[in-house]
């Protein structure tokens, strides 16, 4: 592997194959072994339309230091076979420096792939596999790739034992033998510069998906009740939590639909138990009426929304950031609430925990916007530190005569009575109400409650968690969510080019933080707003909500092709 092909700090590899070819197994094993070796990185996958077992590609980036960005191109595409590869060819960009490895008996490289001009290496993958009893081509592939990234035999065999052990010793041995042949095949690759790789940073890695991290963070934040209706790509948040909750005395109920799941969560939280539900676009759309109820009745609740391509049923297995608008503006009436977004797989942990903290502290619904890319990606990251945000829901501790549930306080937060407390009885209401909760259509009541519900959000101290601000310069890359990785890498590269670029990645989308943003934008003359939407939702949101002291331009694209750092670099370089 040449220097041009992969930097000594990063390598990107895609493994593709049709249904049953085992491309995902190859990718996952490669990734796990690399993580065990101390590599950082991300594994994502892309699938064909079949319900199960159709063509798939595992897309791996391995790096020696933490990153959540994809690279611009893949250094290696290994195709176990070429069936239906056109369905996701666009998601695996190659250059003339890339290497395409395919089976010598697998037919010509399809034009959508070969037009990249990448070097083509055809190896006897299937034929070699046949040399081993039950030998499978995807293990040859694993051997080739393991050799290319210098993964030690021992780590690989341990991992195989761990993952395939239940299939019996014979299966493990057959795989190991096949891998060995693959390693040997790799010798025939034109240039394999194994020695060039830096050692990854020392320390143990953890491999986790964004959806698992979100569930874990939510539980760390205190969630003990979950109501669930499955939907791609959010189901894993719920599935992970269903096993985890009972360990902490919590519980999960499967609901009949999203109208029910959001209301169950509100019911649990009204009862004093921090509650959550998770969904994706179509489910979020069904929940907005009741999220508005949580706003008006001031019941904390967390909604994890893992975005997929829209509109409508859209592209359930592909990523997009196009639920920004509905998350911020999708409630009827003026309904101030919290919207947060993690920036990477591991940040799902932090942001979920923080979102629970905000919802509970502010007695308001918090929508956390994750997406398919980070939700279903597996990331090799450092183990997280323990965080404690401290304050929690402000509750009434003793009953009082004439208790006002919706008392107009300076902070806007009013102590909430939890059922069971004598003397705290009140009726929570989604109708506009007086401070006691009695329905009222009077202007004075409406005005003071509207002010209060807004004030509690705007006056809260979000510390510096509201955004990640990195670097300095007169150009800012402003972004959010999973495009943060690419934006960060772009800023780093620009600095290498001598262009000072500042990264502003927003974690708190609502309420807006005008003063903090003004400070962040001080000295900035141009800002590029980067996002994965068709209509530049985030760009318009930034313009609507912030006074921009600078030129602003959107760099946006709908899914499923993710935004890569080189594209951002080019946008900025070409911005005269």
């Amino acid at each position: 592997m040449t220097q041009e092909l992969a930097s000594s700090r990063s390598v990107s590899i895609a493994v593709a194959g049709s249904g049953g070819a085992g491309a995902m197994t190859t990718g996952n094993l490669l990734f796990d072994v690399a993580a065990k070796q101390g590599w950082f990185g991300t594994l994502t996958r892309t699938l064909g339309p079949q319900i199960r077992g159709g063509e798939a590609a595992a897309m791996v980036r391995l790096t020696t230091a933490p990153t959540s960005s994809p690279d611009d191109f893949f250094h290696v595409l290994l195709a176990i076979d070429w069936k239906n590869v056109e369905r996701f060819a666009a998601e695996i960009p190659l250059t003339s420096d890339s290497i395409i490895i395919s089976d010598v008996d697998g037919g010509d490289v399809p034009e959508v792939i070969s037009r990249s001009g990448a070097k083509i290496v055809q190896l006897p993958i299937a034929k070699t596999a046949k040399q081993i009893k039950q030998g499978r081509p995807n293990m040859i592939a694993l051997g080739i790739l393991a050799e290319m990234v210098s993964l030690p035999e021992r780590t690989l065999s341990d991992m195989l034992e761990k993952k395939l052990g239940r299939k019996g010793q014979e299966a493990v041995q057959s795989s190991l033998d096949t891998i060995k042949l693959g390693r040997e095949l790799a010798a025939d690759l034109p240039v394999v510069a194994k020695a060039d790789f830096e050692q990854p940073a020392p320390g143990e890695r953890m491999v986790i998906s964004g959806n698992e991290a979100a569930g874990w963070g939510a539980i760390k934040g205190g969630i003990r009740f979950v109501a669930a209706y499955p939907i791609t790509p959010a189901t894993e948040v719920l599935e992970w939590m269903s096993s985890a909750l009972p360990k902490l005395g919590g519980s999960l109920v499967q609901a009949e639909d999203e109208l029910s799941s959001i209301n169950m969560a509100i019911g649990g939280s009204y009862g004093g138990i921090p509650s959550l539900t998770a969904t994706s676009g179509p489910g979020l759309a069904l929940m907005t009426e009741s999220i508005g109820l949580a706003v008006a009745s001031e019941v904390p609740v967390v909604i994890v929304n893992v975005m997929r391509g829209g509109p409508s049923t859209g592209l359930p297995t592909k990523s997009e950031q196009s639920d920004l608008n509905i998350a911020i503006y999708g409630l009827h009436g003026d309904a101030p609430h919290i919207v947060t977004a993690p920036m990477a797989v591991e940040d799902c942990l932090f942001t979920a925990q923080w979102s629970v903290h905000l919802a509970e502290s502010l007695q308001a619904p918090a929508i956390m916007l994750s997406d398919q890319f980070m939700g279903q990606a597996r990331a090799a990251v450092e183990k997280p530190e323990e965080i404690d945000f401290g304050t929690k829901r402000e509750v009434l501790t003793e009953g009082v005569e004439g208790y006002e549930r919706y008392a107009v306080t300076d902070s806007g937060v009013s102590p909430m009575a939890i059922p069971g407390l004598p003397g705290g009885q009140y009726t929570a209401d989604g109708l506009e109400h007086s401070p006691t909760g009695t329905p009222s259509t009077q202007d004075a009541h409406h005005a003071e409650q509207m002010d209060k519900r807004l004030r509690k959000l705007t006056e809260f101290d979000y510390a510096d968690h509201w955004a990640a601000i990195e670097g300095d310069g007169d150009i800012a890359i402003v972004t959010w969510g999973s495009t943060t990785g690419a934006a960060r890498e772009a800023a780093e590269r620009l600095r290498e080019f001598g262009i000072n670029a500042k990264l502003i990645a927003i974690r708190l989308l609502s309420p807006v933080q005008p003063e903090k943003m003004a400070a962040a934008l001080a000295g900035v003359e141009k800002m590029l707003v980067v996002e994965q939407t068709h209509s530049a939702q985030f760009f318009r949101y930034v313009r609507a909500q912030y006074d921009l002291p600078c030129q602003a331009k959107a760099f946006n694209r709908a899914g499923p092709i993710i935004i890569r750092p080189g594209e951002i670099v080019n946008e900025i370089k070409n911005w005269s």
Partner: protein
Amino acid sequence: MNQAASDIALVASDYKSGLKPVWCPGCGDYSVLQALTKAMASLALKPEDVAVISGIGCSSRIPAYTSTYGFHGVHGRSLALSTGLKVARPELTVICTGGDGDGFSIGGNHFMHACRRNVDITYIVMDNQVYGMTKGQASPTTDPFWDSALTPGGTGVSPFHPLVIALASGANFLGRAFSGDPKGTAAMIEEAIQHPGFSFVQILSPCVTYRPDQKDWRNKVRPAPVEATSDPARAARRLMTDDGFNIGPLYRGEREPFKLNQNNSSTETYDFTGQFEV
């Protein structure tokens, strides 16, 4: 309520908040409020341990008129609120309330699934066979030929039979009451609260404003001729031929209630890190 109050016996009026209902004079729901508070007094429930939950409609205004905890949610979702609350806080008495539109039209799916799930809550529907709050449209229990501005000449659709659906879906206690008989209604609510699992009480509660014809109900209702059965098939046979005016407990089921979460200790910690080691 007064903290000392829990030491002395409470009467029905102690369960009223004192807030003046927005209902029309003569509305059947006044008597339901009377019956509900009487039932809670009979059971000597502590007002702070009870939550009365509802959706939207005239009838759904009832929580604020009690002195218990309450939640006046959105239209049609009261059973989901109630389920979440009861599963998360099993020690509370959760009483879900509302109207025929709220419960059987927009809320119909939650009704069916709440019956199936059999969580230990009591569901009280004030059935006036009309949407009162929105000024008189047909509800699922309305006669097909009842004329309204929205469906002139009637909907032409045969009425929904809530008790049959509840039984077929798996509710564990079924009863019908008439708000004109607050005493009988109170007794029914009392039994429903005590019965384990999901209990459903249909209360015929006239809308004097949009269904003045319901004055007639007083002459139509009668005690159910036979004792409530615990056999679903027998109950089904009876309910399917029932004309809607048999009053009393109609089915006492013996299904196992939904297993509630019995451990809410949130102080425990558990380290999940191991799950993510490579």
